[in-house]
């Protein structure tokens, strides 16, 4: 199955430790990921590689649910997880110090499912949707931490 990557960055006026703490708590993702309605059954409660949770996305009146697993987490530097059911994807948040602030980069690598491609007619349109989604997520983290 073909794969694609969405990547977006922004400077966040907050130190890396604060940015990491904000994004690494699994249940907090509903506050900055559009359409993500629920995270539950987080085990164990503390962020660490191997931590798993269930998620639910709202998608035009449908609920898409699945499981995720944290694959890497380094305080103040990096947080990565994979969606392990449904459409496989790997989400990586990279945090780099930028003076006293942070440069946050979100990279989402995902498989392009054939049925979605059929619905949206072309791969570039689907990829643009995911780039826009990644841009919105990074912008939302910046807003939540700055204003």
């Amino acid at each position: 199955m073909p794969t694609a990557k969405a990547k977006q960055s922004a400077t966040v006026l907050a130190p890396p430790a604060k940015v990491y703490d904000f994004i690494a708590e699994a249940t907090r993702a509903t506050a900055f990921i559009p359409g993500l309605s629920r995270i539950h059954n987080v085990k164990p409660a503390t962020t660490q590689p191997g931590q798993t949770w269930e998620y639910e996305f709202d998608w035009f009146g449908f609920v898409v649910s699945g499981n995720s697993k944290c694959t890497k987490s380094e305080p103040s530097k990096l947080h990565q997880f994979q969606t392990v059911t449904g459409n496989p994807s790997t989400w990586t948040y990279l945090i780099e110090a930028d003076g006293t602030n942070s440069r946050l980069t979100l990279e989402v690598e995902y498989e392009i499912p054939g049925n979605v491609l059929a619905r949206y007619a072309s791969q570039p349109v689907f990829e643009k949707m995911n780039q826009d989604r990644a841009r919105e997520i990074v912008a939302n983290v910046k807003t939540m931490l700055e204003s």
Partner: protein
Amino acid sequence: MIRLRIFHPGRHVWRLWSKRSGNTLEEIWISPRRIPPDWEKILASALDLIWLENTRRPGHIELNGQRGFIQWHEGQRTTRIRLRLENFSAKKQSLIAAALLKAARFHLLEEG
């Protein structure tokens, strides 16, 4: 797994009214229910999760620093929830309101 929203076990909470004026966002939500859930626990824990300090009172949560409040009133078959956010950016107000609405619909479902 994919299923229709109407078959999801989440609470029914609908936004009835929303108004932005100056640096203030006000919304009114309504939730039909048989037994009222613990709104204070649901909404205050959602505020804690996004690092907004708050003070809890019966039927009311105040956001510290004069940043607004959430009130709820239990009727016979519905709960009416009023949200007021002030002194945040317009975008942050929208994100906070969306996070609280998600919490009202889905947070702590296992307990209620």
